């Protein structure tokens, strides 16, 4: 029906998912709707004559802003406030992917790295304050990938690389276990 017009298909699917999510109070369907909306953003950019990674990144950030503000607005209006966690979850993932893709750039990655560190700090603080370990996990994993890519940039010595992963891997384990112990509930 929408042959060759996948962006319309995605937009229609987004609308349907949102309707079903709010109608049947289902956060799983809401996450599908938000993902379809992200897909629509991406496809719209792919139609542009000279779409580049930087354009994708900027529109991913715009998507995060729109969805985050939308989710917060709906929460404040009391419209299924428990959906806010789903909005935040999707926004966090898209944001971290966008920032990481900037960190992986060959040039001009400094600003993206700072933004990644800031986002990791915010995610960690939010996770600890709200006792949602998912956001602590995002900060740990995305932050680890970003910081590792910076540290290992240009390092070719196998021993140094492997030693780095052993030391930092164990350090991350210790930190995460301590966080879990300090803020977690007992078994």
């Amino acid at each position: 029906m929408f042959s060759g017009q996948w962006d319309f298909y995605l937009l229609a699917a987004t609308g349907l998912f949102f309707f079903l999510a709010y109608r049947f109070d289902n956060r799983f369907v809401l996450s599908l709707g938000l993902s379809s909306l992200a897909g629509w953003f991406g496809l719209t950019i792919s139609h542009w004559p000279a779409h580049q990674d930087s354009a994708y990144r900027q529109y991913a950030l715009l998507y995060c802003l729109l969805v985050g503000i939308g989710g917060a607005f709906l929460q404040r209006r009391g419209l299924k406030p428990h959906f806010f966690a789903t909005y935040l979850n999707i926004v966090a993932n898209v944001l971290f992917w966008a920032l990481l893709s900037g960190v992986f750039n060959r040039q001009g990655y400094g600003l993206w790295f700072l933004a990644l560190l800031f986002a990791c700090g915010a995610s960690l603080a939010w996770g600890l304050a709200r006792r949602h370990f998912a956001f602590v996990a995002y900060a740990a994993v995305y932050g680890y990938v970003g910081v590792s890519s910076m540290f290992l940039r240009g390092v070719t010595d196998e021993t140094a690389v492997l030693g780095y992963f052993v030391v930092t891997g164990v350090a991350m384990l210790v930190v995460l276990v301590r966080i879990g112990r300090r803020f977690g509930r007992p078994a």
Partner: protein
Amino acid sequence: MRLYCASSEETLRARRLLADWAGEGILTKAQYQRLEQETVSELRTANIFQRLVLFLFTLVSVAAAAALFFVVFLSRPSPQAAGVFFLIFAAVCYAAAEVAVSQARLYRYGIEEALAVCSVGFLCAGMQSPFFSANPYLPKPDAAQFLVPAAGAVFSLWIWHRLGLSYAFLAAMIFLLFLPGYRTLSHSAEHLIVAMSYATGLVGIAAVRSRHRFDYLEEGYSLAEALLWLGIYLAINLQLSSFNLPAQWWGGTRAASEFARPFYWATWVLIWCLPPIVLVRGLRQRDRFVIAVGAIVAILTFVSNKPYLGWPRHTWDPMLLGILLTGIAFFIPRWLAGGRGGIRHGFTAARLSGKDKHWMNLGSTVLGPLSPHSITPGPQTSSPDVRFGGGQSGGGGASSDF
């Protein structure tokens, strides 16, 4: 034989049930807190996100440590030497997993699981490397290589039995898939051997689980049975288990040419017979996992019927299937709710437990971010202290507490 004592696991199960019931409002907060104090376990657990992250970093650390050992101490090891060290790593990892459980009392904590998984990986690498990789003089190297997946299957089953990790059972089933390939050249025989192996396992599980109908082992056996039913179905559905699946489906060629005609059509009959059998078994046992697998294999039968018969596929086929499934999803709850007290044959559409929230949370976390990749084509040329989640169902996954 099991690493955890029965009372500890039973206590943890009771705590999970309490959380489910409290989450659905069956228990008041005061009742929950009182009962929670009576079900204190010495085992240390983690929520699913913490578990996943700890699993990941343990895996990174162990893999990097093993690689570092080879780089520092063995610059160019022979396959035999590398194999021996892999086997030593396997033993060390397994011992570490046992110690993590027995001393640190870790239970589904990620760390001990990753160590156990690494031990299976190192065992397979250790057996593959010295015995088969660099030995061109073996008379039938392929035939002897079946020892590698066999060892993987046996060790995975041991870990499933010892630690109760359901995905170790799945790993054993996957290892089993590779066994017939080393012993026979017939594709039909391969499918048959795999299906028969799973069926044998199913009989064994069904016999054992009847003794654990209401205890902490029930869920593990239920999942194992569901996986075996799914494995049997996938083994006999030649359209799904063939290697060149996309080419067959979209290129219009059929798998029939690979197989003898009687075998091919016998499997077609079986894929229609199996879903009702699985569904009836699940309904009779009141087993959610088996019912879910029954529904999945029924959908797979609908999906694979046209390729089986060699009929052309249309773009609207998925829409029709979606409409059918939506209709069923609407009809069944209403039909159940229409019974006396909202119950028919012991089934109700009303939510009795928040058990499914856990799976929906995880599912939406994983599928939500991934779904754009699956549905988007390629670029065109042109309570502050005790939380139980919110909402009726589903979730973005971010709502799990510590």
